[in-house]
Structure formats: C-alpha cells, structure tokens
C-alpha cells in the first residue's frame, strides 16, 4: 500500500482548506429525533401507525371486494362517473402500499443512524505481489488439471464446444419459412368485383357520388378467410374508392386506371402499414392517422407530407358486363410498408 498511497486522496486532502475542489464535509447537524427522546418516540409511533394502516388495508380490501357490486357506478369529483368497485379497491390498495413504503422511508430518515460515512476510493489494480500470486495459482490449476497432459480429453473438449452452435441451426430454421413472393401479390385479380367492407355489397359506378368515399375489399376475400381461418389475406387487400371530376385528376399510376373519375387506391400506408382513410374530399388528400403521411389521390397518390417514402399503390379498375366495378388486374407493386427484399 505504501508505494501507491501518493495516488490516493487521503482524508486530510479532502478537508484541505486550500483545495477549492475539496471543500470538505459540511458540519454534521443532529436531527430533532437525535436530541429529543420525545420526538424519537413520536417518530416511532408515526412509523408504527403507517405500518398498522398497511396491515389493515388488505382486510378492508377483502370486504370491498365482497360487498361492492362490480357494476355499481358512482360519481367522484374530478374523475367523473366510475365503477365503485374499481375506485375503492384501487384507492385502498394504493393507500396500503404507500403506507408501507412511506413508513420504511420515515423510519430510515428519522430513526436509523444518521452519520456521514467517508469511503475512500482505491485503485482497481492489485499490487504486483497479488498479481504474481494470481498468475501462479492459475498456472498451478492448469498443471494439476492435466490439460496439457491428456491430449485426447483436450481435443474432444474443443470438439464438443465447437459443435454447440449447431443447436441453433434447427431453431433458426423455425424462424422461417421466408415470405417468398407472398408480399408481392394480393387477392386482387382481373375481374374480381370490388365490394364494400363489412356489408360486402358490389358497387356500380353510379353508386358513388362526386366526393364520395367507400372502403372496399375484393369479393373473394370472405371465401379465402373462411378457407384459411386467418386474416392474413385481409392485411394486403383493403382499398378505398373515391370519385372526383375527371378534370380534377392530374395524374394516375397507369393509363385509364380510373373509371369515369372513380379511383381505387390501397388503404395500407406505405410507411408502416396503418389503415389510411382520412380522405379530404376538397383537397383529395388521404391522411394516415399514425404518422401524418399524406397522399394526393388526384396526383397519382404521391406523398405530399410525412414520413412515407413511396406513393400509395393504385389499383386499376373497370366495370364488368353487369356494370359492377371490378379490378383490371392485381396491384403492379407490393402494397404496404417496404421490406428487405423489395429492392
């Protein structure tokens, strides 16, 4: 220690009056509970009272749980109409847990020893003798284990350790299979009728007024959902139909992809895939509620604001022989957010 002592700040240094960075410890002030035995006794009673409340509240909690009906509503100022059961159970448990914690803190602050301890900071490096001792002990361990002596054991151990990563191979395989081209195709196909979401009614062009908006899905979705028993197909297919005057359409993603001013765009935001249907019929902007990406449907679905990087994919539509709106073909680009293999 003596060789290193000049590196350490001693207690004398800490209190050195000429060192502005080490002003020393402030004068120790006794608490009232240290001086006045009656104050100490009072603090003791206060702490005990808090703990007693902490012990009683679970009992009150049980009674409340049994006797307050869960469907009873009461009016509480500031909170409004609320479930009586929720309110009183939460209040009781809150008071109980708070009193146990507050009692512990009050105890520590008022009655537990109040002394300033000074702990010197030591160097992390051991002495040279300690370091030599550690190295010699390690070498003795290597010697006595016979690691250098038993060649077969050493080689098989290295082999066993080298093989352990193989456990990960089947586990990593189960993270798959890779999506393949599933993200590039949807249920939309030539001639698939566009039906309104929820009510599943097919739509004729004359059903949609100027300024109208219809949230739609492909007619074959219901059958696919019934067959697969999951909602995976639904994640990609939602579209919105909007109608504007043909002269208001400045650009589309393909020639004649509209039908008499009726445009069909994906409802899945190209940023992170939220359903995007906040349509302003005056500006023809489609706003995503999650991160305010805004697409101009009168201008080929271009992004006019927000974090989305790609235009909203447009679905080419026409009418079939019966006069119902149908898809011309599937989307020509993947819908929804970007993904690794999209390129």
């Amino acid at each position, binding site marked *: 220690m003596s060789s290193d002592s000049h590196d350490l700040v001693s207690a004398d240094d800490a209190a050195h009056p000429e060192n502005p960075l080490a002003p020393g410890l402030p004068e120790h002030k006794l608490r009232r509970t240290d001086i006045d035995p009656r104050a100490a006794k009072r603090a003791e009673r206060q702490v005990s009272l808090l703990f007693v409340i902490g012990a009683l509240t679970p009992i009150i909690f049980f009674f409340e749980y049994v006797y307050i009906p869960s469907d009873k509503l009461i009016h509480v100022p500031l909170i409004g109409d609320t479930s009586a059961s929720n309110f009183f159970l939460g209040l009781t448990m809150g008071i109980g847990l708070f009193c146990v914690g507050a009692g512990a*803190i009050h105890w520590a602050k008022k009655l537990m020893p109040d002394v300033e301890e000074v702990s010197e900071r030591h160097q992390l490096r051991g002495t040279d003798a300690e370091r030599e001792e550690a190295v010699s002990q390690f070498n003795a361990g290597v010697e006595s284990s016979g690691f250098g002596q038993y060649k077969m054991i050493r080689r098989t151990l290295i082999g066993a350790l080298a093989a352990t990563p193989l456990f990960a191979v089947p586990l990593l395989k189960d993270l798959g299979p890779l999506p393949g081209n599933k993200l590039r195709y949807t249920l939309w196909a030539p001639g698939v009728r566009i039906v309104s979401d929820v009510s599943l009614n097919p739509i004729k062009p004359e059903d949609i007024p100027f300024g109208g908006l219809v949230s739609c899905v492909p007619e074959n979705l219901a059958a696919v959902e019934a067959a697969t028993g999951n909602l995976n197909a639904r994640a990609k297919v939602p579209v919105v139909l909007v109608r504007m005057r043909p002269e208001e359409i400045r650009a589309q993603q393909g020639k004649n992809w509209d039908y008499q001013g009726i445009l069909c765009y994906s409802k899945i935001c190209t940023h992170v895939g939220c359903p995007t249907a906040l349509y302003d019929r005056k500006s023809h902007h489609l706003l995503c509620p999650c991160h305010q990406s805004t697409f101009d449907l009168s201008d080929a679905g271009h992004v006019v604001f927000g974090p989305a990087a790609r235009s909203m994919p447009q679905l080419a539509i026409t009418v079939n022989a019966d006069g119902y709106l149908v898809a011309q073909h599937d989307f020509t680009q993947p819908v929804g957010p970007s993904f690794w293999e999209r390129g």
Partner: protein
Amino acid sequence: MNGRNVHADTDTPASVSAKLSARRRHPLAGFLLLAVALTVMGGLYAAVTGAGTASAASTDGTPQEIAQGRALFLEGCASCHGMNAQGGSTAPTLIGVGAAAVNFQVGTGRMPLAGPSQQAKRGPVQYTEAEIAALAAYVASLAPGPAIPSAQDLDYSNASLQEGGALFRTNCAQCHNFTGAGGALSNGQYAPSLKYATPQQMFEAMLTGPGAMPVFANSTITVEEKQAIIKYITTIRTSPNPGGMSLGRLGPVSEGLFLWIVGLGSVTAIAVWIGAKTS
C-alpha cells in the same frame, strides 16, 4: 464562505438574487412547480364547445316558402355563395347540394360562416326552424339533391348495434375517433366531435359530406346501415367509463400525457422527499 456572510444583510441586487435562488431550492419549491404545471394542464382540458339544436323540417317547398327562402338567401348567404347560389371564389356552389346540406349546415350553426378562411364549426343557430326550412326549400328548388331524411329514415330502434360498430370503425373512426371524439386532419383541419350531433344531423352529414368529409351516399352506406351507425354513436356516447377519467376519450395521447405529467410528477415528488435532508 465568508464572503457570502458579509453580504447577507445588505440589500444589494446580488443578495436579492441570492435569496430568490435560495427560495428556488426550498424543499417545497418542487411541489409548487408541479402544482402550477398541473393547474395549467387542467385548464387546457377544460375547453368546452357550445351546443346547437335543429329539428326535422318538411321541405315540400311551397312557392311561398321558396320565395321566403330566396329572400333570406339573398340577405344572408348570397355575399359568398353568389346571387344565384352558383358559388364564388370563397364558397362552393349550392346548386344540387339538396335540402339536407342546408338543414345540416344552418341547423348546426355552421352557416352563416363568420369568415371564409376558417373551418365551419358548430355554434349558435342563427335562423328559426321555419327560416331554415325556407332556405332548404329554396336550395332544393334549384336542382335535385339529397332531401332531409324522413322520420322513418331516422328510426334506428331496430338497427343492429354490432353492425353499426363494425361500419363505424371501418368508415368513420379513422377521422372521428373510435368513440366519436373527433380528431386532427391535414392542413390544420379537424373532424368534429359527435357528442352533440343529433341523429338527423349525423344522417345528413353522411348524406351530404360537409366540409372536407366525404359523401357516404345511400347507395354505398344504405339507410339501414346509417341507422346502425347512428345507433352505435348514440349508444357509445352515453355509455359510462368504468375506469373513470375518460380524458376526452382520446385514447393513448391524452392518457399518455396524463401519466407523463401526473404519474411521473408524483414519482419525482416522492423521490425528492426520500432524498431530502431530515431536520
């Protein structure tokens, strides 16, 4: 240390600022700051909106009614919408908007608009029921348009609440919020709260698409479906909040803000108490 004591009893600016500085470090100062912050936040929540009323009006459109409506139109509306309701640089044409649009816009106090640049919002109704009916009859006489829904259209007693919920979440909730509390739109616009809308006004709004709202015509959302949506809205807005404190029913935004300020504020206050020196 000694230098500070020398100036302690004088009234120099330095000592005043030292006193202020000392008060800022008072143990209660943190709590006071928290209380002020909470009061300010509470005040922000206390924003209220006025209610308006409107009622069904028959718009068969007798010649006298149409004439009265035209007189009222020329007096109160023509300065923006044009002498023949053809529209102007600041206001849309009213030819073909129908009686339903007039009944909604005037019956909710959105029209007449004080200034052309702002979004029309619900306010005190400026016309009597008879005057609104006359205005509606006049506008309806210009060109065919959506009529004011009949009492039969508005009878939602047999509608399906479940279907209404599904339709509302698919077609309405993106702008009006899943409880009808309203929400923000692009370019500083907003979708209004549905708290005060009457069934007739909801029906008319879907039918005519006021302001930025798209049109949900009876051909795409049928009368029965509109009734279901109205039933859902009227049910959801009167249903209680078992958890208490709906915070405007705005969901994670207001709830997160409340927790951030009140929850973290309380935790901070307790941490200050734990760390404070005992006297």
